[in-house]
């Protein structure tokens, strides 16, 4: 789960990482009130979970009272890479002489968190890696011991960062590690971490991603979770513990298992169409869950055919068939549905579905994909 900048900064400030004075505005009037409190100039920053907010016009400097509501309005009425803006962070504009990048991220291959420091902050780390790789240094952190100061000094020394900044850098890195560890983060970034005219360090922007698998023990995040990135259908699927992701094609699909679901999507493309969704019903799905899954798939108006591919292991094909049989008579849209049942109790499943002539059955996955694509094109024409 990704956190907004303002959420990350709340955690930064809780752990003693200096951040500019700020407030969160839901309306242009609130933005003006907050700016009056903290004093001009201020920066208005759209709180959307997307990179490149600046380039997209989501970050603007405001020098005085006269222009703040117009500028706030401009941002509220815009979309940042397709995402509507609901909240603005109104933040004191800070002068600075240098920009660093400081982050901790899990490295999959090393199976360790790594500390990353760059003397060329202010742009995305991937971009620094391309344009100025010599300005990036990183070191793994032993997860059993945690971040030690010497690791931070080693990076600062290699990058030639002024010695007077090492101590505050160590303190900020230590805070960052505490947050990373306590909050089950998979990524925390301060970018830029700036040097102010007073030679102190301050976090001007922040990113945090929390491990979805750890949300159960991070109760704070159950409240802050922002679902605006999910479509309403995706949110509904969640209620049934269905793993559903909406896509742009027109063949809806339902599969047991994530790898097989991806493979089924790829087969649809190979057969000449595009998948409308990813949907993994998981292992051992009950009839109710299958019923819910089919209802969710056909809610997408783009869907012109459905492909159901079940390889029964823990999942029983007869149970899946019963779930389908429950929803078929109530379907208002006459969509072609291709079913392919294989593995545990496949024969029983096929029998249950025999009375439904609108179902097309297939024996192999690729054949099922081809039939679905053909049927979908007939519907469209």
């Amino acid at each position, binding site marked *: 789960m990704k956190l907004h900048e303002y959420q990350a900064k709340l955690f930064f400030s809780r752990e003693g990482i200096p951040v500019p004075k700020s407030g969160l505005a839901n309306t242009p009037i609130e933005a003006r009130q907050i700016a009056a409190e903290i004093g001009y100039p201020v920066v208005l920053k759209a709180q959307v979970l997307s990179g490149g907010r600046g380039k997209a016009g989501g970050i603007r400097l405001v020098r005085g009272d006269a222009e703040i509501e117009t500028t706030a309005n401009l941002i509220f009425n815009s979309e940042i890479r397709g995402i509507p803006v609901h909240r603005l962070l109104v933040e004191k504009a800070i002068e600075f002489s240098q920009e660093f990048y400081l982050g901790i991220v899990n490295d999959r291959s090393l199976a360790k968190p790594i500390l990353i420091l760059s003397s060329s902050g202010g742009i995305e780390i991937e971009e620094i890696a391309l344009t100025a790789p010599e300005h990036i240094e990183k070191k793994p952190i032993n997860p059993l011991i945690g971040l030690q100061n010497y690791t931070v000094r080693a990076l600062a020394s290699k990058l030639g960062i002024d010695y007077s900044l090492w101590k505050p850098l160590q303190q900020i890195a230590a805070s960052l590690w505490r947050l990373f560890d306590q909050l089950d983060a998979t990524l925390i970034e301060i970018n830029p971490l700036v040097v102010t005219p007073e030679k102190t360090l301050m976090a001007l922007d922040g990113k945090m991603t929390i491990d979805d698998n750890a949300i159960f023990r991070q109760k704070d995040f159950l409240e802050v979770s922002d679902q605006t990135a999910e479509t309403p259908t995706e949110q509904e699927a969640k209620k049934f513990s269905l793993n559903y992701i909406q*896509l742009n094609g027109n063949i809806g699909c339902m599969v047991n*298992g994530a790898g097989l679901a991806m493979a089924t999507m790829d087969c649809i493309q190979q057969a000449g169409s595009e998948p409308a969704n990813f949907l993994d019903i998981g292992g051992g799905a009950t009839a109710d869950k299958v019923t819910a899954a089919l209802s969710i798939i056909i809610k997408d108006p783009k869907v012109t055919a459905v492909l159901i591919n079940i390889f029964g292991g823990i999942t029983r094909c007869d149970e899946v068939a019963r779930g389908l049989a429950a929803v078929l008579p109530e379907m208002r849209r006459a969509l072609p549905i291709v079913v392919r049942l294989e593995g545990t109790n496949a024969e029983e499943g096929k029998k249950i579905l025999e009375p439904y002539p609108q179902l097309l059955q297939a024996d192999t996955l690729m054949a099922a994909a081809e039939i679905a694509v053909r049927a979908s094109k007939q519907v469209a024409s």
Partner: protein
Amino acid sequence: MTILLNENARILVQGITGREGLYHSERMYAYAKNVVAGTSPGHGGEWVLDYKVPVFDTVRDAKESTQADTSVIFVPAFHAADAIMESIEAEIGLIVCISEGIPIKDMLKVRALLEHSESRLIGPNSPGILTPGKAKAGIIPGSIALPGKVGVVSRSGTLTYEVVQALKKAGVGVSTCVGIGGDPIVGTSFVECLDLFESDPHTDQIVLIGEIGGNEEELAADFILNHVTKPVYAYIAGRTAPENRRMGHAGAIIEGKTGSARSKIESLLRAGVQLFSYPEEIAEIIRI
């Protein structure tokens, strides 16, 4: 021979009194009769599977009484890292973790502990290991595979079943089928499994089933190029997956430039691997 698991394995099931643990213990027992013990805290002294399998409170007790050498873990995600560490501490040689959804932080600690131990971990979020005709540790249905000489290694479950069954329909058998797990941090990599298959005299050819996310397949390609002499076939799932969305498996996500199907397919092709483009196609391209 075969890799990791053979007919001599003595299997211990952690979480044997739970619904899934019990169900799959029955399946494993039916397959090879080599489930020798189970653990479930507070249930020590009980028996399961019609008094054939004793239950212990701890892994160490179970190991001392039954000489179990392979553990299969079915406990819920929030206890799973604890269960893995208990087996590492008890010096169980092979630990197979089926549980899905373990926090990454817990897995980082597990990996750090594994570095200083003799134990090997398969998974988590793995369907387990099947050595057809000899033993199964996990949930891969025994009925889908014939014994044979093709080694199979995969990051997923049902997709693997699909490929293995396609081989069976073509009369091709499997030496060992290993599911390394769909999580970003797992105990055993593709490269390690390829290495084991390369040295296994009972494996002639290797099938690798990868998917988007991470760079395991790219590392596997490098290893194949330099160290594998046996023919390798590969399938990569997720060519149509969008960026930045987790496709069910916690590890299946394209982040920035890392993890796309294209990069994996190109690396494997450069390593001389034969790619197949849909699961059942393996039966058409594999040489027998």
